[in-house]
């Protein structure tokens, strides 16, 4: 009996789970193992040019590993995973962080929410966890972009194939962060975004890269305001 050329046929019409990871060797294997225990989906770890053995750890835990030759950041890595999953026919793509703050048992919550709402993007959100600067940022973005999403920085998301395909294109490649640019793009194309409340852990190690210092926050707010300016009011025909 001939083996299929590659195991990605498993992804066809199924859920794929994308985990962007940069230097997450201490946690990535456990995260992949928990996800695999909770779901039959193919797990794709996108190794964002790590300098530790993130790739080997992820592979040993049973994930498919894509290794970026240059560091593209969280969104660049996530988009790589989306492209790969869509290329191999995935029906939906779930993304989660490699540091263990998102729980594998909450995957079912996101899937159930998509089932009932038929939304193109379900964001796993823990709004009570939002820090003060994030709350202020959220109010500000609601004002300038009209976005109702509460936990806009959450990387725990379930994209429909339609949303994922839209985000694979070149026009989504130059986003520096996965949040506002992505959300506004989907909004402009008339796709529906809902939030599902989930519990999250404190990060096992490390901390939010964006909200780590006031200088970072300022840079983030400026760049994201620019994204809003570039995208606001650019309604498109539904894709």
């Amino acid at each position: 009996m001939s083996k299929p050329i590659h195991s990605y046929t498993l992804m066809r019409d199924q859920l794929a789970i994308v985990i962007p990871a940069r230097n997450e060797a201490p946690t990535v294997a456990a995260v992949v193992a928990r996800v695999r225990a909770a779901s039959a989906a193919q797990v794709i770890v996108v190794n964002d040019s790590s300098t530790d053995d993130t790739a080997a750890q992820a592979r040993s835990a049973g994930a498919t590993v894509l290794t970026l030759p240059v560091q593209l950041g969280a969104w660049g890595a996530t988009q790589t995973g989306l492209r790969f999953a869509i290329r191999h026919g995935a029906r939906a793509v779930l993304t989660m962080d490699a540091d263990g703050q998102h729980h594998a048992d909450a995957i079912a919550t996101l899937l159930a929410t998509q089932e009932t709402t038929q939304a193109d993007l379900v964001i796993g959100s823990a709004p009570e966890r939002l820090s003060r600067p994030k709350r202020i940022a959220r109010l500000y973005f609601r004002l300038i972009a009209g976005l109702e999403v509460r936990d806009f920085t959450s990387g725990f998301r379930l994209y429909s194939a339609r949303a994922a395909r839209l985000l694979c294109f070149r026009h989504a490649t130059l986003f520096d962060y996965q949040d506002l640019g992505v959300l506004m793009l989907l909004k402009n194309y008339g796709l529906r975004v809902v939030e599902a409340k989930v519990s999250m852990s404190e990060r096992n190690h490390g901390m939010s890269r964006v909200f780590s210092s006031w200088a970072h926050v300022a840079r983030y707010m400026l760049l994201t305001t620019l994204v809003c300016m570039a995208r606001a009011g650019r309604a498109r025909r539904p894709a």
Partner: protein
Amino acid sequence: MNGVQITSLSIGLILAATIIYLLRRDHLHGPYALWWLSMAVVTALVGAFPGAIDWIANALDIGYPPALAFVLAIALMLVKMLTMDIERTRQELLLRRLAQRLAMLDEEIKERNRGE
């Protein structure tokens, strides 16, 4: 030929010669080469005939002719910098897409080899 003219002509010619040298060494290509070649010609001409600036400024009723040279130079630099950043953005997009594609193809080749 007076002192001023000799100074401006040598500056113009040195700039023009440097640019043409870089062009011939393939350090500048395509549209950049064209832009810098034009700049080489302009610097050489202005160097040879600095009076031309005065003449044009007078024709345009500009009281202080060097201002015309400065304004034109700054405006051209701004345009050049803007087009450079546009080009950089295009290259960044290309680089990111290529890196993503490389990561995908790399894994697909490895998987194919594992399957055999």
